[in-house]
């Protein structure tokens, strides 16, 4: 167990780091300080004498709270900026269409609420759409080319 004074020193240091990381979400800040705490506690326990003075030395050795926080903020700022709502990737749309459309059609054919004629129309709509799109593309290529 850690004595109270060492614990207080440690808490103050972690608190300073956390306040420097204000702009990050709380869960991220907590994760960061938990990991640093784990490091400092392990080092302290391995000391010949786990005292408050040694805790202070270990903390000094680890670095200034501002510098530590800057390290984390720098790592985050180098990541490419992403738009808030990115559209679903094309592969996902294709996969969902391929796999979900048959499921929908099977359900439609099983449903007593639909007449056979409606079921046939529902089944043929995608083929009709595909044909229209293909025709439109051919026309476009013809016009551009």
């Amino acid at each position: 167990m850690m004595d109270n004074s060492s614990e207080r020193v440690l808490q103050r240091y972690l608190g300073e780091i956390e306040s420097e990381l204000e702009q990050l979400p709380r869960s991220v800040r907590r994760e960061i300080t938990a990991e640093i705490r784990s490091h400092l506690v392990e080092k302290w326990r391995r000391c010949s004498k786990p005292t408050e003075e040694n805790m202070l030395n270990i903390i000094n050795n680890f670095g200034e709270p501002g510098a530590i926080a800057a390290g984390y903020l720098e790592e985050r700022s180098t990541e490419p900026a992403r738009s808030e709502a990115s559209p679903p990737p094309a592969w996902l749309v294709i996969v969902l269409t391929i796999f979900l459309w048959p499921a929908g059609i099977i359900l439609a054919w099983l449903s007593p609420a639909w007449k056979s004629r409606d079921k046939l129309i529902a089944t043929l709509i995608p083929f009709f759409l595909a044909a229209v799109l293909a025709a439109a593309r051919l026309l476009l290529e013809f016009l551009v080319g």
Partner: protein
Amino acid sequence: MLYNALMELTNPLIQIKKGALEFCVLALIARGESYGYEIVKVLDEEGLTTPEGTVYPLLARLQKEALVTSSWRQMGEGNPRKYYQITRKGEAALALFREHWKEFVNTVDLILEGGTQNDG
């Protein structure tokens, strides 16, 4: 004078070291899952001493880039540790870096030693 010359010499080396450190940490995790304290210790033992505080933001970035994953573990009443494991993407990135690093070191060596590639 001497101090300035020394600084000018060491600064580029610090930059190179900084860039390579990321992959040294990744290589250590590739040997088997590890946690921050151990990584810092092994780096130190292998002669690549770095300020302890710099390794942790670096680990955060490796995880952000999905080169490693992590999991917290606690043994009984002990101090919980955050263990890192390398991912497939991490292994691929490491393999690529190894290749490029060797090439880079060879090229720099050749130039520094006044290599014989000019006229052939």
